[in-house]
């Protein structure tokens, strides 16, 4: 595969400082066709013809200058990346995702005209559900919500929640992300939280639920919560101080809940003996920036409390705590690396 930039763009005869008026459309079209032929790998025999076309008319030369400008300004930087094919594939994927969101937005605009359609009737997929959810938090945002029965809910970063309170029951639906719930007592109306994998019934309680890819994570801090999985109908009552993950089919054996986990509702990440790699992964949920960890320090153990509302401050504290240095070649690109040897360890 020929990765190099085609030589034709750098071979323009000198002295082409023509008037700035745009060349006629036909000349622009012909230039674009010549470009397509010359880079196709099949036009070698046509080189002389291309040169003749170029010489025949100043409009042709001027149109070709636009081909040249496009090639040098926007195509060459992409061709010169380490793996142009990967660059192109990722760009295409980004465009496909954007087009999908554009379609969803257009569909929503139509729905808006049809009045307030209930979310449970309109959602073909997670994206549209999250966008139309009753409560939403952005990346890096932690929100506290007072529910109408006096219960409180905290939405962690990038989360979406629907509320469906009725005469006989209180029901929340976690669409994405994580919530912490502190329920108010109401003997007449049971309190449910639904995830994609099953239904949770609160038995007087404080607990957090996290929607992960294909599974849910439940941690109970006070009281107890009953899990019922969506497909198999398996049930389990999880007591305070325990946590577990479940899919629509089954429930993993419970493990001790990490009490530090609920600290996010206060805007803190409390870490008790976790590898640096996992701490970075957790911080990544709160920011649009990329946070990379050098492999040789990924397993360093971390203890400490870090503010989630300001990830930059959290990174500085983390750097102090674990004795590492922060490299930031771009505003949204952060790499954590081992600090130089000569610096005094802490």
């Amino acid at each position, binding site marked *: 595969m020929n*990765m190099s930039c085609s030589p034709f763009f750098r071979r323009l005869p000198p002295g082409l400082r023509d008037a700035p008026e745009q060349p006629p459309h036909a000349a622009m079209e012909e230039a674009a066709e010549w470009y397509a032929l010359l880079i196709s790998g099949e036009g070698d025999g046509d080189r002389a013809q291309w040169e003749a076309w170029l010489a025949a008319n100043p409009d042709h030369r001027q149109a070709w200058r636009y081909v040249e400008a496009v090639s040098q*300004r926007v*195509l060459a930087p992409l061709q010169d990346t380490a793996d142009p094919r990967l660059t192109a594939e990722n760009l*295409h994927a980004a465009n496909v995702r*954007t087009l999908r969101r*554009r379609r969803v937005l257009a569909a929503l605009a139509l729905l808006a005209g049809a009045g307030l359609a209930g979310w449970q009737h309109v959602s073909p997929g997670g994206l549209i559900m999250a966008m139309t959810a009753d409560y939403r938090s952005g990346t890096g945002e932690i929100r506290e919500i007072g529910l109408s029965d006096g219960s409180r809910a905290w939405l962690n970063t990038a989360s979406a929640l629907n509320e469906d309170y009725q005469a006989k029951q209180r029901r929340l639906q976690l669409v994405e992300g994580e919530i912490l719930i502190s329920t108010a007592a109401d003997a007449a109306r049971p309190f449910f939280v639904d995830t994609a994998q099953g239904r949770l019934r609160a038995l007087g309680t404080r607990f957090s639920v996290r929607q992960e890819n294909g599974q849910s994570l439940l941690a109970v801090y006070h009281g107890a919560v009953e899990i019922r999985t969506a497909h198999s109908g398996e049930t389990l009552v999880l007591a305070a101080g325990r946590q577990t993950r479940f899919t629509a089919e089954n429930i993993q054996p419970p493990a001790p809940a990490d009490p530090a986990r609920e600290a996010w509702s206060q805007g803190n990440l409390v870490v008790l003996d976790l590898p640096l790699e996992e701490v970075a992964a957790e911080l990544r949920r709160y920011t649009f920036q990329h946070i990379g960890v050098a492999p040789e320090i990924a397993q360093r153990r971390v203890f400490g409390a870090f503010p989630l509302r300001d990830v930059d401050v959290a990174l500085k504290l983390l750097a102090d705590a674990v004795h590492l240095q922060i490299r930031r070649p771009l505003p949204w690109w952060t790499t954590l690396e081992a600090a130089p040897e000569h610096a005094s360890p802490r």
Partner: protein
Amino acid sequence: MNAAGCASSPGIEILYSDHHAWLVGWLRRRLGDAADAADLAHDAFLRLIIKPAPRGFGSFAEARGYLRAMAQSLCINLWHRREIEQAWLDTLASRPKDYAPSAERQAIVLEALREIGALLLDVPPRAAQAFLMSAVCGMGSQEVAGELGVSARMIRKYVAQVMLRCMQAQACQTSMALRDPSS
């Protein structure tokens, strides 16, 4: 606020007080982020000041419809920019650690990705792929044709089509730069 100076259509301050809070709410529900919503609402009103709707707004509903359409395109632009940035991060992340282009180089690549990305949003996906494979990856038209399952001749047609759009965008930029030599 008094809009006595604006005879035919409500002044920008009336539009602002009628619609700003609603627009921020609308954007916020879609973006899930208060700061982004405030920024985009600000952009929308700024655009209205710089380039008012051609014939003004006949009614409250018409103004809302116009603002909603504008807000939608601003949302798409914001999402697209973020998607492109994420795509570039993914590209970088999959390279060995020693590959680290300079910040300046990266800024140039990102700008190129944004420009080509925005242009390719408006062409058929197949033409976009054909163009990227040919013009960026340097694949021959036979090879691209094999991957996309169309003829090499069709591939050349796609490439020419997209290149023409790029050239027109370039011409547009050049003439703007000529009009405003400071930029």
